[in-house]
């Protein structure tokens, strides 16, 4: 097991009202630790020094929950492509490195404390259309509606979005288009979702705008930084579905 001496520059911010700053810490880590385990060690160290531990979000630590939002050396979830922070291991860094850790930056994601940001804007976008309406009762037989493999795969690729917010963090405009388009593309491609497809895209885009996210400039930083490698083809799909739904929906408002 090889040890690494690291310098951490971590964003510390008491609460939403206070001004934060980067604080410097020295830490001894192992190359086999995950990034979050390294932060756990930092917190042990801070507690022993009777200092306030660092607040950061984590939940599953197995790449599916999307909680571990932070920007590491200028990249959401760190330098390794297609992973979340929990799956980033210290072997990606070198002994003696300085690592800068900051919270996701977006007006729609206000900082709560240190590295923890409020991403409930995403929840409200999901609530506005990330569902299908079905009658409850006996569970429907699996595969009762045949869906061809290509469609199922495309919908599934979009459905792999874990709503972590890396797309917003990476975007110079803090646009949530990759997230919202993944949710729209997941359901609108499937027969079960097609019934409410028009209203879904109209509602979700409207909610996304209301939350104060920026607009897409087709920079594609979102696609590069997404831990699930969601494609910007989904943004094009959302655009054409939104344009189509706006022009052809029977509703006047």
């Amino acid at each position, binding site marked *: 097991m090889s040890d690494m001496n690291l310098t951490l520059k971590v964003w510390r911010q008491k609460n939403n009202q206070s001004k934060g700053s980067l604080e410097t810490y020295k830490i001894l880590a192992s190359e086999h630790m995950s990034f979050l385990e390294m932060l756990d060690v930092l917190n042990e160290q801070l507690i022993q020094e009777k200092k306030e531990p660092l607040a950061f979000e984590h939940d599953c630590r197995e790449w599916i929950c999307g909680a571990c939002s932070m920007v590491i050396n200028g990249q959401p979830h760190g330098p390794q492509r297609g992973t979340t922070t929990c799956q980033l291991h210290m072997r990606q860094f070198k002994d003696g490195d300085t690592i800068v850790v*900051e919270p996701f*930056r977006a*007006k729609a994601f206000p900082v709560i404390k240190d590295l923890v940001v409020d991403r409930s804007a995403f929840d409200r976008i999901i609530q506005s259309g990330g569902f299908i309406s079905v009658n409850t009762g006996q569970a429907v037989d699996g595969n009762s509606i045949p869906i061809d493999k290509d469609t199922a795969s495309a919908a599934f690729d979009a459905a792999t979005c874990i709503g972590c917010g890396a797309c917003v963090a990476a975007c110079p405009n803090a646009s949530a288009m990759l997230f919202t388009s993944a949710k729209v593309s997941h359901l609108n491609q499937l027969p079960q979702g097609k019934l409410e497809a028009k209203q879904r895209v109209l509602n979700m885009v409207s909610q996304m705008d209301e939350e104060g996210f920026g*607009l897409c400039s087709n920079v*594609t930083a979102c696609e*590069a930084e997404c831990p699930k490698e969601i494609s910007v083809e989904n943004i094009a799909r959302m*655009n054409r579905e939104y344009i189509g739904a706006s022009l052809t929906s029977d509703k006047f*408002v």
Partner: protein
Amino acid sequence: MSWFSTFLTSSIGKKLVMSLTGLFLIVFLLVHLTGNLQLLIDDGGRQFNLYAKFMTSNPFIKITSYGLYAFILLHAVQGILLWLKNRAAKGGGYAVNNTKATNTVAGFAKNMGWLGIIILVFLLIHLYQFWLQMKLGTLPMVNYDGVEVKNLYVPVMDAFSNIGFVIFYVLSMVVIAFHLWHGFQSSFQTLGLNHKKYTPFIQFLGKAYSILIPLGFALIPILFFLRNS
């Protein structure tokens, strides 16, 4: 709000306006270049002046030109507003920024606002120098087979014999090339026209267009300057 204004003021609607006006201006560049290339015909400006006369007197072209002015204004004003809105939505950057992008033109995408403002400044000077002279200025007249036309060739000759202006013009074309490099293919993505079969072709066409059109514009003052000196 009516459904139409809701549509056009939504995030996607605003981008749609940028995309459609941008595509119109892209087509306009080709028309403009076709006109300008007539400057290279070595006939003392006869062909060019007759073309200028046609462009300012044909009623259909007149109507289209009002649309053009409106679209330039809309593209510029909306572009600047969106640029400011997007910066506000980010609310400050990172101490370290290393974000990658999958699209090779992303570097230009982030700077469309700056590039656009430089183009706007160029455009204002350009309009003052040629367009306003044609519309209001006192250009010398020239007679071709009994037809009296304004001699727009004269201010063009003057401008293109000034090395400072030639350099400014060529640099502005480089900026337009960068703006088009992102804008061309981005306008299709905004319209939702992204398809595995066609997107590679659109991207290739966009790159070819954004090199060839500004190159065509830039060659004219360079050739004029070399011919005159």
